[in-house]
């Protein structure tokens, strides 16, 4: 609402002042982003299109786009789709983990966000509790689960004591359940905050109108709240799925075994392996290509919603 008024008065102001002033205020940030955010993609293309130095196994980037070669591309392509396609499996696994973890995240986050948004008396207290994990470092939260899930850890203790299992489960050596739960645990607070911001903005008068017109609670939810929150569900699912797709540390902290390797692990390993940063560059560009459409959708829809800060 405010954004609309602001837009009107803003157009008056910007006519004032010397023409060089506003661009020069924006310039340091713009340059910083150009050099360290935009330029890297060109370098990644140059490395991906280059060759490897046979002596030092260091990448030899080719800067002229016209002479880019497809050495690395061919390699990655055959890893993905060829006879020994070990990467193809990794990509599918990553996709499966991200989809399953995002779905679980939504199933947890929506009810929680809905409940807190409908709270009137203890909202502040609930919000503080919801935001708390947001400020605990991600690594610490993974470390916490690592403590709990050890063979002699608390989780196995409880499960054996309640006779749910007869002998300790080894959670931390390549258990896909652990990795997915780790991802859920890591990213669900972000989703809750995004959903909360969206649900809290729904006009209460609409809900009251629906109920005054005789809709039950469940039908009010299905016909009013849910449709009104569709946009924020998409946005929230995206804002959690995007970093998950590039996650490699959750996996390393909670599994570290090749059977649960995600695409992020392959990329981060390729950088530290001599002669493989070209493969890493190709894979990062693939990942970027796969995620670019949802990212652009997100940026555009959040700009349309007025200010981006509101949707985030």
């Amino acid at each position, binding site marked *: 609402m405010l954004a609309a008024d*602001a837009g009107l008065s803003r157009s008056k102001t910007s006519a004032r002042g010397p023409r060089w002033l506003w661009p020069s205020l924006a310039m340091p940030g713009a340059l910083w982003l150009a050099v360290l955010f935009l330029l890297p993609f060109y370098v990644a293309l140059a490395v991906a299109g280059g060759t490897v130095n046979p002596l030092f196994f260091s990448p030899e980037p080719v800067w002229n786009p016209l002479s880019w070669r497809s050495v690395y591309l061919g390699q990655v392509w055959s890893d993905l789709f060829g006879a020994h396609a070990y990467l193809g499996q990794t990509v599918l696994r990553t996709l499966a983990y991200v989809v399953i973890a995002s779905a679980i995240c939504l199933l947890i986050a929506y009810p929680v966000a809905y409940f807190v948004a409908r709270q009137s008396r203890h909202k502040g207290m609930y919000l503080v509790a919801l935001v708390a994990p947001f*400020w605990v470092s991600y690594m610490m939260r993974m*470390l916490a689960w690592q403590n709990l899930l050890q063979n002699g850890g608390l989780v196995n203790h409880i499960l054996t004591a309640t006779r749910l299992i007869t002998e300790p489960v080894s959670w931390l050596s390549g258990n896909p359940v652990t990795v997915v739960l780790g991802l859920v645990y890591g990213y669900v607070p972000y989703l809750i905050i995004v959903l909360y911001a969206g649900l809290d903005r729904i006009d209460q008068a609409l809900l009251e109108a629906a109920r005054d017109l005789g809709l039950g609670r469940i039908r009010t939810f299905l016909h009013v709240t849910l449709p009104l929150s569709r946009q924020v569900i998409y946005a929230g699912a995206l804002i959690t799925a*995007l970093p998950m797709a590039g996650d490699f540390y959750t996996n390393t902290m909670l599994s570290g075994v090749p059977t649960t390797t995600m695409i992020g692990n392959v990329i981060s390993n390729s950088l530290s392996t001599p002669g493989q940063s070209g493969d*890493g560059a190709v894979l990062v560009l693939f990942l970027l290509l796969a995620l670019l459409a949802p990212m652009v959708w997100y940026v555009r829809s959040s700009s349309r919603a007025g200010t981006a800060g509101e949707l985030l």
Partner: protein
Amino acid sequence: MSTGTSSVAAPVTRAASGVHHRARLRRVRRPSLLRGFVWLYLLWSLVPVALAILFSFNSGSSVTEWQGFSLRWYTGDPYYSVLHDPALHDAVIQTLRLAVLTTLVAVPVGVLFAIGVNRWRSRQASAWTFLMLLAFVMPELIFGVGIFLLLTNLLTFVRLGTTAQFLALVAWNISWPAIIVRARLASIGGDYEEAAMDLGASSLGAVRRVLLPMLFPAVFASTVLVFAGVVDDFVIVDLLSSNAQSQPMSVIIYTLGAHGGSAAAPALNALATVMFVMSIATVAIGWFVYRWLTRGEKGGSALSLGPLTGS
């Protein structure tokens, strides 16, 4: 803690808390099933971390069996404690160094970027805004690998290590102040500046004397966010660290903790607790100062929490 769902607050309280339009809905009895679910979630999300903190005070070297309280893993142990293990306390220093440097640069740059782009009406301005928002949603791995390739192949005069980490963290964190200040600019509008200029201020003077003071809460909120964000950052600092000296806390926890149970496992918990205290202290101070700065503004606590949570 548990609220009587059927109890209706006195009208006075309603008006005072400013949620009277919502209070009318309260005649709807909230299902306790949902409440139970929320409490289960809160337990699940907070208890593991609380236990990790607890076991950092364990006197034995187990992270699963309580052997008595001690500060062994913080100060006592001559080899493995955070105080005495050089790797651990270097990590604390490196984290602080990066957080302070990045905040000092990223916040002013981001704020100026937001003001400049907001007032500079052109295609270019929206293109830069788009780029800034794209950087915000870019997975950190793509962002970090890009900078790694840039610094190892093109700008090779920047060595990996603190400088590289600093440059990359600033780029990664410009978006926070830019987005928050952008939102704030939209709600302030142009009238105040207009008035200042009608009274004879130059446009730069109006920015400095009128706009910046009004933006101060937003600037402050983004300072807190950037600082706490850098303390928590992992991917960029990991990819761009060169040796043990340039590994901040998150990277140490990752490298030492990756494959479970080392001899000094509780020392990692202690390090993580130090990290936790640092971000919580930042946020707590930030929150109170923010409340104080925005006192008397419409919206009260909910609004002040907004920028801090990024919502």
